[in-house]
C-alpha cells in the first residue's frame, strides 16, 4: 500500500516482510479491539451448542491454528522477523507438556508453563544469536527453519524423549479441569481452547499498544532509524520473539491435551510451521484479527474439500474416489486466495476501510 519514495536499505531481519504491510495499530486510541475481543469470545463460546461433534473437532483445530497464527504474527507481522520455523515453539510446548504429564506426572497446566518457559528461552537464545550476528532476510528465515529441523532431529535421536514414537497422554475416564482431560467430544476442550485463544489475543493487543510493541513495529519498518531514535532494537525484537514463542507454545500444549498424542514430525515438522504462516497470511499479516479470520477459513478448508469430494453433488460424482484430488483442490484454493488477496482477507478489508 505504501510504496516508499526512497530506496529501502533497511537491514532488519526478515526484511522482505517489512514492505507494504498494513498495521491496524497506533492511530486508533479507542477501546475497539477489547470490545471486539469480548464480543468474539462471547459469540464463539456458543459454538458447541450449534455444531455436531465431528464439526467440533474442526472447531478445535480452528482454535489451534488461530493461536499459532497469532503467535507467528507477533514475531513476523509486527516484529518483521519472518519465521519459517515456528514448529520449534509449537513443538517445545507440546513436548514439554507431554513429557511433564507422562514422565514427570505433572498437571498439563504446569506442563504448559514449562513449555512456555523453555520455548521463550529457546526463542530468545537462537534469535539473540541470529540478530546479534546480523542474519537478515532469507538468511534469518532459513536459520529459523534450520532450528526447528534441528530440534526435530534432536528429539528423534533422544531416548528420553522416546525418539520417533513420541508421547501418548494416558486416557482417563471422566472430566478433570486440573488434568485438562474430558470425555471425547466434550465441549470443554473447545471452551478451554477458546479461553487460551482469548488470552493470546489479549496479549497480542496489549503488545501492539504497549511501548515495546510500538517500538518493535518501528524497528520493523526501519531498524537503523529506530536505533538512531534511542530504541534498543535487539532488546525489543527479542521481546517480540518471547511473546510469540510463548503464545505458540500454548498452542502446543493445547494440541497435546486435545489430540493426546505427539511425535517429532507433528511437533517439529515443517507442516506446523506452514500452518502458522498460512493462517496468518491468509487472514492478514500484521493485523490483530487477521490470524483469526485466517484460521476460520483455512483450518476447516481441507475437511470441507474432502467432504465435498467424498459425497460430491449431483453431476460431480466423477470427482469422487481419486486419492489426492482433495489436496489439489485445497492447494488451488490456497493459491487463489493468496494471489487475489495478497494482504489477506482481513488485511484487505482494513485497507479498504482505511482508504474510504
Amino acid at each position, binding site marked *: *500500500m*505504501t*510504496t*516508499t*519514495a*526512497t*530506496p529501502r*536499505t*533497511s537491514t532488519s531481519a526478515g526484511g522482505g516482510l517489512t514492505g507494504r*504491510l*498494513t*498495521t491496524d495499530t*497506533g*492511530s486508533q486510541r479507542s477501546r475497539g479491539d477489547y470490545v471486539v475481543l469480548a464480543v468474539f469470545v462471547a459469540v464463539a463460546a456458543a459454538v458447541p451448542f450449534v455444531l455436531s461433534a465431528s464439526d467440533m473437532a474442526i472447531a478445535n483445530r480452528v482454535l489451534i491454528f488461530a493461536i499459532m497464527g497469532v503467535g507467528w504474527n507477533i514475531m513476523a507481522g509486527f516484529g518483521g522477523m519472518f519465521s519459517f520455523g515456528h514448529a520449534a515453539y509449537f513443538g517445545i510446548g507440546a513436548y514439554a507438556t507431554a513429557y511433564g504429564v507422562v514422565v514427570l506426572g505433572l498437571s498439563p497446566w504446569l506442563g504448559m508453563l514449562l513449555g512456555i518457559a523453555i520455548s521463550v528461552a529457546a526463542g530468545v537464545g537462537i534469535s539473540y544469536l541470529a540478530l546479534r550476528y546480523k542474519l537478515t532476510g532469507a538468511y534469518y528465515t532459513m536459520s529459523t527453519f534450520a532450528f526447528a529441523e534441528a530440534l526435530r532431529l534432536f528429539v528423534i535421536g533422544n531416548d528420553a524423549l522416546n525418539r520417533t514414537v513420541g508421547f501418548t497422554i494416558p486416557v482417563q475416564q471422566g472430566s478433570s479441569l486440573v488434568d485438562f482431560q474430558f470425555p471425547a467430544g466434550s465441549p470443554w476442550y473447545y471452551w478451554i481452547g477458546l479461553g487460551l485463544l482469548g488470552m493470546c489475543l489479549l496479549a497480542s493487543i496489549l503488545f501492539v499498544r504497549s*511501548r515495546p510493541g*510500538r*517500538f518493535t*513495529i*518501528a524497528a*520493523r*519498518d*526501519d531498524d*537503523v*532509524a*529506530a*536505533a*538512531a*531514535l*534511542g*530504541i*534498543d*532494537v535487539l532488546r525489543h525484537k527479542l521481546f517480540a520473539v518471547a511473546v510469540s514463542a510463548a503464545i505458540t507454545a500454548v498452542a502446543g500444549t493445547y494440541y497435546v491435551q486435545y489430540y493426546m498424542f505427539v511425535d517429532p514430525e507433528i511437533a517439529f515438522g515443517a507442516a506446523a510451521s506452514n500452518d502458522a504462516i498460512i493462517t496468518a497470511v491468509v487472514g492478514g499479516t*500484521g493485523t490483530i484479527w487477521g490470524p483469526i479470520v485466517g484460521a476460520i477459513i483455512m483450518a476447516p478448508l481441507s475437511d470441507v474439500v474432502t467432504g465435498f469430494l467424498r459425497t460430491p453433488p449431483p453431476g460431480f460424482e466423477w470427482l469422487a474416489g481419486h486419492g489426492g484430488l482433495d489436496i489439489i483442490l485445497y492447494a488451488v484454493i490456497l493459491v487463489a486466495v493468496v494471489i487475489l488477496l495478497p494482504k489477506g482477507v482481513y488485511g484487505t478489508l482494513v485497507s479498504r476501510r482505511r482508504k474510504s
Partner: protein
Amino acid sequence: MTAVLEATGISKSFRGLQALRGVDISVEEGQILGVIGANGAGKTTLFNCITGNFPPTSGTVRLDGADVTGQPAHKLAHRGMVRTFQLMRPFHTMTVLENVEIAAMSRGARGGTARREAGETVERTGLGEWADQLSGSLPAAMQKRLELARALAMRPRVLLLDEVLAGLVPAERAPVLDLLENLRDTEGMTMVFIEHIMAAVRRLSDHVVMMDSGAVLATGSADEVLTDPQVVEAYLGKEASDA
C-alpha cells in the same frame, strides 16, 4: 567552554577503501558546526562513526568529555546525541504523527504526553497538514522534514543533521533555517550539519569544516573556509563567483 562533542583521529576503511583518514572535529556547547565537502568526501561516514552506526577503525569520540567510541546508536541517542539521515528512513507503515510520537516515547514521554509533544513538534516543523498521512507516501522533501521532526522529538542536546535541506525548494528552506537558528539561540542546542547549500552554511555555521578525500582540508569560520582557494577549487567551482 569545553567541547560537547569531540571526535579525534577518526579513521574508517571499508575493505580496501580508506574513507576517513584521521578526522578531528569538535563542537562547543550551543554552537553550530557546518561540514562541507565534495561528494564522497566521507561526511556521512563521519556521522556514522560518531553516532554508533558502525565503529570507526580508529579514533575516539567524546560526548561531554566521556569516551563513547563504538557505543551503540540507541545508547548515544539517550545520551542526547541524535541524528537524521541523508537517505530518509521513515517508519513507512506509520503516519507522520506516529513517527514522531515514537521518538517522543523513546525519550520517555508517556501516553498522552508523547502524543501532545509529537503534535507540537509536527506543527513546529511545518508538517501539520501532513500529520495523518502515511510517512511512506510523503514527498521527498516532507520526509526530510520528518527526519528533523523525529530527531527534535528526542529533545537532543547535540543534533547531527545530514543534508536536511536537500530537496527543499529555496522558499521552503527559510522556515527550516529559522527553526534551527531558533533552537540554537533559545535552547542552546548544539548542532553539526552536513550541507551542500552554501547560503545555509553561511547563515548557520559558527564554524565550518571542509572535508576532502576522507581528511579535513580546511577549517575556520564560514567566510574563511568558503574563500579558501583550495575549497573553491575542490568544492565550490562557479558557486564561489556567484556568491
